[in-house]
């Protein structure tokens, strides 16, 4: 079966532009997470979706960051007015609700802001 997929795999953008990153979770997984990993750093939690519940946005670093999940499946992370410090690998993960701890990660999107 297909794993978590993310697109694009790489994105180079100019400072000030908006970007959209996409995540397709594993079919049937109700939980979806976004993380950011800067060079040499651990994963930084951004946002969590679980079913139809309100998302946990506590990790979003600023109001330039937003995410939505349509139909309980695909999710899009949007970064407005990108800054150089936004450069990182953005990872998406999904899991079953009952096995919430076993997150399956996508390959990530490497974002470079020039």
């Amino acid at each position, binding site marked *: 079966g297909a794993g978590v997929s993310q697109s694009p795999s790489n994105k180079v953008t100019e400072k000030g532009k908006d970007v959209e990153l996409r995540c397709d979770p594993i079919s049937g997984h109700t939980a979806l997470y976004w*993380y950011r990993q800067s060079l040499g750093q651990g994963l930084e939690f951004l946002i969590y979706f679980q079913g139809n519940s309100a998302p946990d946005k506590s990790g979003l670093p600023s109001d330039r960051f937003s995410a939505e999940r349509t139909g309980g499946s695909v999710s899009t992370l949007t970064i407005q007015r990108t800054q150089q410090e936004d450069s990182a690998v953005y*990872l998406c993960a999904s899991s079953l609700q009952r096995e919430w701890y076993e997150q399956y990660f996508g390959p*990530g999107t490497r974002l470079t802001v020039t």
Partner: protein
Amino acid sequence: EDKVVQSPLSLVVHEGDTVTLNCSYEVTNFRSLLWYKQEKKAPTFLFMLTSSGIEKKSGRLSSILDKKELFSILNITATQTGDSAVYLCAVVGNYGQNFVFGPGTRLSVLP
């Protein structure tokens, strides 16, 4: 503020050696501690630990949690070059699903 500290940050060993990776944490309303292996981009789940003193084991890997002293260790015996990776420790509290990850330990196993 929830925090996870891992040590060492980097470790180089030879095949056949045994390694111990450390993870200490501070978290509000602890729920569980998790270990992941990250070889390239996507981390893969290894263990979830919720109760103190109960060892989780998978092949040459094992892990245990001490909730009194707020730490966990991950042991790898008879290391192989395929064990080379970054090992991430994460904790999650009871409120929400905010996983707090440590910086990871980069393990390099030389032939």
